């Protein structure tokens, strides 16, 4: 009963003018920062933090939470329209979002992405509000051994992505894994392949690499082609086309939501992993995997839906255990502490009103984003009609600025350029870029946890077979490696 009262007063407070204003401001700021590459939600939160120090905790957290949530939407718009991700979690969206824009269907893609915000955010929000402690205690079952196997499972989905040319695909993945080994060995503290360059001690940063791989390589191509991004002059898609397309794929919707929530609830993996996993899963499950990368709407739907539900999922361990699910949530956790809201299992009792205000505002924010995205999609998509000689220098400036702004190190600009040339070469010669990025994201997680698990078991490998979670995940990994090929063999053997 007391809890019910807290929920009600939290919801009531969410609808006060101050709070609604903070919610709308947070959402707007989040989208703007999300659009700028390299400056994601975390940076926006850190920048605005001093301003909110004197505010009511509920209002301050509302603003910060909505910034975090909405930044990924801003990033998805630029991913779709100009092949430049706002944040690493938008990287997978580019694979099909950008080809859609090239075909003049940019508005549709943004429509799909907007619907993902509402549906993914909404479902994530329901789980967060009603079963956060339950999910958090499930997430705690993931120790080092479980996380290792999870990373292996996530890596195994590469199998489905490289069907058309397995050798080139695997080479690309192996290179990604190699790149992830650059920097500190986080267990022994030994620096690898850095040659005394301190800015590389944390490893090759992912954000500049992704910007280079997609945006810069695209800049080279566009610069040589002339014309405009869109190859057709008449833009397709009405206001509601994106929403209609979204609901045509219930299977993909369900699986992407599931991936987003589970990965989000685990502190070891974040939004980038979830969106890549959902993308690869959509490819694997599709009857026509060859249409991906050429503007298949599911290629936008799957990663964006996972990304948005994962953003909500990220909040679950943050609020329920005080363990941040991602870098962005770590900043958010700090802000909570700054306002004296101690997260943990008791948070919903001790600071119930504040947290329920936050949750309500997060949900309102997804509605605002949805309306904004759907009504604006047509106008945003016009960017794809601008002549290349005007848009290309702009993309170039924003990409390099984004690479720099990520950590304020000049070496990141150089890294971005190197990856730009690498990406151009790989795309020209038919090497998939996604396996390389997956290798980079997951290599670190797999290696660290593998090492930790072996320390814990004194070097005995049976730790990876000791719990039912690891067994299920291992079985799924094997299935996921073999499945695409088995399906192929089965189809060929089937008499017509």
């Amino acid at each position, binding site marked *: 009963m007391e809890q019910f009262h807290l929920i009600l007063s939290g919801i009531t407070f969410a609808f006060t003018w101050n709070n609604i204003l903070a919610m709308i401001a947070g959402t707007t700021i989040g989208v703007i920062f999300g659009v700028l590459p390299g400056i994601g939600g*975390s940076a926006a*939160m*850190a920048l605005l*933090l*001093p301003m909110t*120090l004197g505010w009511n905790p509920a209002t301050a957290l509302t603003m910060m939470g909505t910034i975090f949530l909405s930044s990924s939407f801003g990033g998805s718009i630029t991913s779709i329209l100009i092949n430049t991700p706002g944040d690493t979690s938008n990287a997978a969206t580019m694979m099909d979002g950008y080809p859609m824009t090239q075909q003049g269907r940019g508005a549709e893609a943004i429509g799909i992405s907007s619907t993902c915000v509402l549906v993914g955010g909404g479902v994530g929000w329901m789980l967060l509000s009603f079963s956060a402690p339950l999910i958090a*205690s499930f*997430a*705690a*079952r*993931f*120790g*080092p*051994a479980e996380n290792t196997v999870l990373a292996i499972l996530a890596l195994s989905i590469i199998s489905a992505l490289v069907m058309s040319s397995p050798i080139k695909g695997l080479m690309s993945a192996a290179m990604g894994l190699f790149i992830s080994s650059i920097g*500190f060995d*986080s*267990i*022994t*503290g030994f*620096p690898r392949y850095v040659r*005394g360059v*301190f*800015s590389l*001690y*944390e490893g090759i940063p992912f954000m500049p690499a992704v910007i280079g791989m997609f945006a810069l390589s695209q800049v080279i191509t566009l610069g040589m082609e002339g014309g*405009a991004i869109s190859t057709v*002059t008449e833009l397709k898609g009405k206001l509601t086309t994106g929403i209609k397309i979204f609901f045509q794929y219930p299977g993909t919707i369900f699986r992407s939501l599931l991936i987003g929530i589970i990965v989000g609830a685990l*502190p*070891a993996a974040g939004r980038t992993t979830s969106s890549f996993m959902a993308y690869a899963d959509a490819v694997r499950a599709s009857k026509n995997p060859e249409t991906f990368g050429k503007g298949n709407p599911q290629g936008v739907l799957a990663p964006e839906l996972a990304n948005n539900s994962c953003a909500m999922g990220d909040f679950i*361990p943050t609020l329920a*255990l*005080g*363990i*941040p699910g991602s*870098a962005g949530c*770590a*900043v*958010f*956790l*700090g*802000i909570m*502490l*700054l306002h*004296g809201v*101690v*997260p*943990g*299992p*008791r*948070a919903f009792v001790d600071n119930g009103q504040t947290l329920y205000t936050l949750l309500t505002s997060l949900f309102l924010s997804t509605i605002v984003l949805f309306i904004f995205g759907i009504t604006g999609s047509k106008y945003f998509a*016009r960017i794809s*009609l*601008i*002549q290349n000689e*005007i848009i290309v220098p702009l993309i170039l400036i924003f990409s390099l600025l984004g690479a720099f702004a990520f*950590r304020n190190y000049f070496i990141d600009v150089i890294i971005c350029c190197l990856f730009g040339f690498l990406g151009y070469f790989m795309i020209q010669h038919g090497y998939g870029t996604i396996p390389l990025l997956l290798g980079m994201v997951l290599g670190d997680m797999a290696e660290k946890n593998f090492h*930790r698990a072996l*320390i*814990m078991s*004194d070097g005995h490998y049976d730790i990876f077979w000791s719990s039912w979670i690891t067994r299920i995940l291992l079985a799924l990994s094997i299935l996921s490696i073999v499945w695409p090929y088995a399906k192929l063999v089965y189809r060929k053997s089937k008499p017509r």
Partner: protein
Amino acid sequence: MRKGRGLTEGLGGIGREILRYSLAGIIVLGLLSFGSPGHTQKKYPNRPITIVLPVPPGGTADIQTRGIVSYLQNILGVPLAVESVPGASGIIAYTRAFLSKPDGYTLLFFDSILRACTNERLQKVEYKTLRFTPIFAVSDQPLCWVVNPQVYQSLPQFLEAARSKPMNIGMSGKGSTSHLYALLVTESLKFKARYVPFGGGAESLNSLVGKHLDAVSVSVGSSYGLVSSGTLKILFVSSEKRSTVYPEFPTSKELGYAIPHIPFVNGFAGPPGLPKEIVKILEEALSKVMVTPEYQAWAKKTKVDVTPLKGEDYKKVIEQGYNLLEKYQNLLQEM
């Protein structure tokens, strides 16, 4: 394609507007910068001070710095810019502060003495921990020994279990403060342990909640949320007296075990050769902040420890940490 051309022409009008305003902005900025050079020979401080923070936003040290800075700039009368320089285990931040001009306009928020010492020993770095100019320490956060109460209810029960098997202890990284504390505890309580490094306190605590570890060595602040709800349990804390922020947790001394105290002091330091007058001004300003009722109320609310320590005493603590690390360096190397 032609249609695209038309659109950009449409943008032209707005573009000119934007260009005009940007140009105006650049000119104004340029004029402003003329006014600033040190014609006004006011004494220190007369321009913004940069504080180099070696941790990413969100952690305990970050919260603490921002809290102090908001009061400190009122007292000093100049803006303070906190520059977050995470990465490379703090090496980049420590080096930047160490090599900066000793004019008092670049200061370091010295978050972890032991981390700085470990880097110095293992990597080729350009700074020397003992040569920083200690200004003022603001807190001495206690570390603690956390267990999962579903597995171990008390210290005797924990020690009993430790007799028959090696314990898996979570800590945050090789050579970190929590690693050294874990070493000291296992040495003093005489049991065998395997030290499992994690990316930070939170990650290791999650593994403890899931019963993958036997205990975690971590700062009290990181574990407080989980401990106050009863999910995890603090067996003892590292401080010599009960902490003022967390008076509910017993010290190891009270339980009858002499575990050496380990400094986990946060404070402000400057580059080598920082003039004494500047140190004094900052020392006084920080002492004032520490006794401000608003700061104390804020620290209480956010569970930030307040243990002020002036420059000379702070120097001793740094030396103590350095020597402690020297003594245990062989054990810390093992992994």
